[in-house]
């Protein structure tokens, strides 16, 4: 009940978080990975101590492979980012990094993506995003196809979509922050994370809305179609769904956190994004979507 009572506070929290996220995205921007823009990533580990990167950059200048970026990794390693390399350039780069076998750089990971492949991946990502969004909107429309009073079904749908945007924007804002400070890159996994968040968080909202609809139907039958107190119905429905909602997202968040802290390096940011998405997805179904419903109903009454 307290959620409905203090709905303005919770709605403002969401509004502030969304604003901050958008500012973070605009201000920091995203560091687009080689998946999408093409390029090469070479990860090496040195046998002995890793050499100075200034020296290496100077030597690499002679190779004619454009500008390179060095990122220290682990204790003895570097990640070298450059434009996409063909096999000869790749071999040459490795040789230079090893300083002609003075201090052998062992390659642990090499990834070179041509610009055409990058463009293709970008198109695939965009198509997937569009398709998943369309499918989810269809799913919402289907879930709310039965008209219910006092609020028409398309408003349920619109609010569910607003909640979804909230769930996607906030993790993206967090990612922009991570991108700026820790070098997280916008790659295919980022897109997958966003799409998975869409799928996971919409269901939570729908289950709660379903409860509200069920309760308002029961209430209407009890009071023989007289005016019903929508506010208290929403409050009761939230009370009923509260524990369930928290518990179900809790289990998913627990496994996601174990992925963040113990899982493979390559899926760390992915799991972190999903954790944020899951958290804000649950928050939005309880503290954003339902209060918004009450707000819409109050607005309708005034008219």
């Amino acid at each position, binding site marked *: 009940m307290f959620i409905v009572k203090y709905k303005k506070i919770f709605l403002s929290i969401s509004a502030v978080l969304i604003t901050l996220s958008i500012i973070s995205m605009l201000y920091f921007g995203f560091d687009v990975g080689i998946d999408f823009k093409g390029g090469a990533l070479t990860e090496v580990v040195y046998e002995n101590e890793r050499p100075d990167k200034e020296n290496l950059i100077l030597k690499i200048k002679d190779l004619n492979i454009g500008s390179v970026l060095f990122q220290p990794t682990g204790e003895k390693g570097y990640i070298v980012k450059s434009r996409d390399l063909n096999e000869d350039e790749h071999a040459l780069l490795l040789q230079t990094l090893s300083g002609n076998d003075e201090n052998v750089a062992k390659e642990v990971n090499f990834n*070179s993506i041509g610009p055409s492949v990058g463009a293709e991946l970008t198109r*695939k990502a965009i198509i997937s995003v569009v398709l998943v969004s369309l499918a989810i909107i269809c799913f919402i429309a289907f879930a709310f196809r039965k008209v219910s009073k006092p609020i028409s079904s398309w408003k349920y749908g619109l609010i569910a979509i607003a909640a979804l945007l909230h769930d996607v924007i906030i993790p993206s804002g967090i990612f922009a922050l991570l991108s700026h400070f820790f070098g997280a890159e916008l790659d295919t*996994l980022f897109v*997958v994370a966003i799409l998975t968040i*869409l799928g996971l968080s919409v269901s939570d909202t729908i289950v709660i809305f379903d409860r509200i609809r069920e309760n308002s139907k029961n209430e209407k039958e009890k009071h023989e179609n007289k005016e019903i107190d929508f506010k208290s119905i929403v409050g009761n429905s939230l009370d009923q769904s509260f524990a369930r909602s928290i*518990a179900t997202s809790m*289990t*998913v968040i*627990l496994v996601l956190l174990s992925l963040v802290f113990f899982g493979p390096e390559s899926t760390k940011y992915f799991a972190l994004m999903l954790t944020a998405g899951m958290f804000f997805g649950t928050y939005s179904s309880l503290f954003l979507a339902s209060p918004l419903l009450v707000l819409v109903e109050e607005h309708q009454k005034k008219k």
Partner: protein
Amino acid sequence: MWKKIILALTILIFSGAVALFVFKSEPKLNKNFETESSFFKNRPFRLGLDLSGGSHLTYKADISLISPDQVGDSMNALRDVIERRINIFGVSEPVVQVQHSGFVSGADEQLIVDLPGVTDVKKAVDMIGKTPLLEFKIQAPEGTPQKATVDENGQVVLNLDSQFVSTDLTGRYLKRATLEFDSNTREPVISLQFDDTGTKLFAQITKENIGKMVAIYLDGAPLSTPVVREEIPNGQAVISGSFTPVEAKELVRSLNYGALPVPISLVSTQTIGASLGDSATSAGVKAGIIGFALIALFLILWYRLPGLVGILSLSIFVLIVLAIFKLIPVTLTTAGIAGFIISMGIAVDANVLIFERIKEELHAGRNIIDAVSTGFARAWTSIRDSNFSTLITATILFWFGTSLIKGFALTLGIGVLVSMLSAVIMSKVFLSLLSFMKENKFSRFMFSSGLSSGKIK
């Protein structure tokens, strides 16, 4: 009551069998793996390149010179040529796939080559880069030293390669090969048509080798050794032999595309060192185990007795999913492992929905038996709805994703599907078995959850 006990026992025995399968078919878990039967041996987890280490190459095929209706055939032939080439080098379980152009995948026809265990890209690229060769060889003149080996049974086996010597005739001069059926014997035969140069060469070869064998070599391995019957001046040759129609068809295709049917160029490469793959695998396994332990802890603390049942059905869920991964088989990648771990969290979701409903029914004043059965019935629609959207996402990702995304979508999708099954069947059987406990304060407490004591509100 007896029925339920038998059902529960059946499920337990079944899961025991699944556990045995998962364990026995995994070399890392099973010390006696060497002595296992081939059924188990052939079903270890299949690890993707990012876990096993290896190279991933993407080639773009130049199809500008090929008529549109031939593109599909040419790409399949290209795949066969490359696959054969890789097999010669003894790479274990290479994966060669054609990615056709289209609205989603882009304008390029691509060939994707995965080489597990090959971490030297240069070698891998060289391996594929060489144009496959179709050669015609003739029998070596008598008196040439023959190489021979003695096999296990003590029989002398002539080394075929030393019996033949190369000629100038190669696949370069082959115009086309077609599949025909002998009008008398109805046997499949292969008809070859050489171009002008080839016709001259072939006429000369056949003239000099009547009654002898001509060997047709593909990529350095003998494909067929027909016997020459007469001189053939018109550049047409017929290979008859004891092929099945399928073999003959294969052979025709190989001959038609003895050389790379279309020029290819390398557009992207990825190599993952074995050590990086190993550490990713162990980190994935560790995250999975810790995630499982955390869920188990949460379930016991919050849901008590039903929580215990939840852990049991979650364990069975994990076993079934792992067995499915082995049977299909699903190629596991880091993203795939993440998908599986997330599906573990979602699997518990269904249990939580059921337990919460049971708690509500208890509060509403029902006894335990009724609470369990109505709780299940009421939770089903929520379970279905809450998994549906995830399934939509997984399906779309699987259709349109790259191999990395496909791995994630597949494991997540399988996990979600199995989880609905495990929650609804397993948890129900076990819980309704337990619900025949004596009805008292303690049992009501055990069936309740969180801070609630199970009293009627």
